């Protein structure tokens, strides 16, 4: 940090001492949804990969084991919790604050697309100082999270469809029976349900890295905002969504 004290910048700091202000972003319910989803998605991925390709087998008599059945049970419970969370999140898209509402997840303005390009360039080290600052999600985050929600939706639909097959005529079979033919067959639906998990496996390291990077490089206190709900931001910086 000593590098910051170099001559040209020191005078700037002396003239304009930096003030911080605290902004409140995420309601405790949204933070709870985030962390519950994290647990559920990791559980679903681990159990799901076992169900898709059992990476160990048990030996001896079948009566002594219940491995796959337990994996499936945990998978279904985690799926149920995730779907309940997702339904709450959808409700929150309409009753949440301006950072949590649906329009904060859709870069629908022309300005958003311009800013997305600037944010993308920032990550490619091209004129990073031109990138706009956001209190909530920047447009790149907005479109990424919306895409992730869409991925989850496809997995939820295909998951319920396959779940329903065990009980023809039952609730899930009746309500989600249209999903299989839409994909062109059960195996195709199964394939998408399985392969989309890799989107999460790609998303996770990138999401973690960019969050940590925002905190380390730009002092954005993003991580603590998802725990405590608020951020300390520089009072002298202009935010697009302030």
């Amino acid at each position, binding site marked *: 940090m*000593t590098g910051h004290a170099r001559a*040209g910048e020191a005078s700037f700091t002396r003239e304009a001492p930096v003030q911080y202000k605290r902004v409140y972003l995420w309601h405790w319910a949204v933070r709870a949804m985030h962390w519950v989803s994290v647990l559920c998605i990791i559980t679903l991925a681990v159990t799901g990969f076992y169900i898709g390709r059992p990476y160990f087998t048990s030996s001896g008599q079948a009566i002594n084991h219940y491995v796959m059945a337990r994996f499936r049970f945990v998978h279904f419970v985690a799926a149920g919790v995730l779907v309940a969370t997702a339904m709450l999140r959808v409700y929150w898209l309409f009753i949440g604050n301006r950072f949590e509402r649906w329009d904060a997840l859709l870069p629908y303005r022309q300005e958003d697309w311009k800013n997305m390009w600037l944010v993308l360039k920032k990550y490619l*080290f091209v004129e990073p100082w031109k990138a706009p*600052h956001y209190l909530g999600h920047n447009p790149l985050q907005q479109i990424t999270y919306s895409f992730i929600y869409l991925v989850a939706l496809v997995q939820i639909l295909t998951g319920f469809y396959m779940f329903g097959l065990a009980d023809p005529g039952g609730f899930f079979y009746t309500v989600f029976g249209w999903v299989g033919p839409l994909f062109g*067959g059960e*195996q*195709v639906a199964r394939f998408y349900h399985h392969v989309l998990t890799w989107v999460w496996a790609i998303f996770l390291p990138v999401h973690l890295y960019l969050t940590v990077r925002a905190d380390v490089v730009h002092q954005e206190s993003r991580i603590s905002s998802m725990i405590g709900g608020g951020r300390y931001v520089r009072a002298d910086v202009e935010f697009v969504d302030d």
Partner: protein
Amino acid sequence: MYFPLSHPWAEDETLGEHLERRGVTRRQFLKYCGEVAVMLGLSQAMVPEIARALQEQRRPSVIWLQLQECTGCVESVLRTADPTIGDLLLDLISLDYQHTLMAAAGKAAEQAKQDAMEKNRGSYLLVVTGSIPRNEDGIYLTIGGRTGQDVLMEAVQGAAAVIGIGACAHFGSVQSARPNPTGAVGIADVIRDRPVVNIAGCPPIADVVTATVVHFLTFNRLPELDGEGRPIFAYGSRIHDQCFRRAHYDAGQYVQEFDDDGARKGWCLYQMGCKGPATFSPCPIFQWNDHTDWPIGAGHPCLGCTERHFWDTMTPFYGRLPNVAGFGVERRADTIGLSLALGAAAGVGAHAIATGIHRARTRQAPNKEPADLPVIPTEKKSEEDPNG
């Protein structure tokens, strides 16, 4: 082996009279009716009704068309070592026109069909095996100089009910697999004005055909069908949920390769690409050839042949999931997914290093380009700066 000519079914004889003449006892007959009632999922109180309807049945006329197909379904339906009453029923009603089995050939055979259709107009059962090729005006299948579609539509007009047997009649089977050069479709894609029963499977189980025919003869209507036109009494649940290897699935015991220890112990064939979890069929219960065996019983994974377009969607038959096209041979979806995920992690690492380098350069030459944010002053900094 039953030989139809040994005891020909007389013109106005009922099925009851005919069976009696063939030496079938009433006890045997009622036992058969009871079995069919179980198969159809009916109450045992319906047995007398089934018995009455069947024994009063006068020789029902059936016209069996073989279109674009391999005759395997005929083999499955007709070849039985020990003919049951059901087989007799099926054999007898099948004989008006069946161009593989009938003695007549050429013009005589076609004439027999025309006669049967005219005589029994509105009352005969139409059984169809095989698909309809539609490309090039259907020239890929011609019988007696006429296209398959022409032959089918003529027979459909006077039929009381249409029963499609096998995957070809269901959706076109292997000839309709991508790229489907002959434009083969199932008969339900051609017959639009009435319900078509699809006895799905490649080949289907003979008992399902018999039970469906008995249902039609007893109640004078077709059994309840699912969205694919398959009778629900037979195709109502998945192989996976009826499989006798299911205990091994739940226990996590899987055959890893054919002939390994698990295979000898009869473990679950899930890892061998078994499509039981995606396939609705009564195979585990009905089985083939008088309950002799069925594919999974013989140690082979299910191919999913009762499902639409299984040649396209259930392949590779020995893999759990479809292959990803365009990535070469043996490149599984998981391999690609894992590579991308590792690539993302590596990319993140590289980006972190690049960030470090970028920051170091920015600090060394602060006037060349501005920092991302105005630099943050700290207490520590002012202490370090002696000129502060």
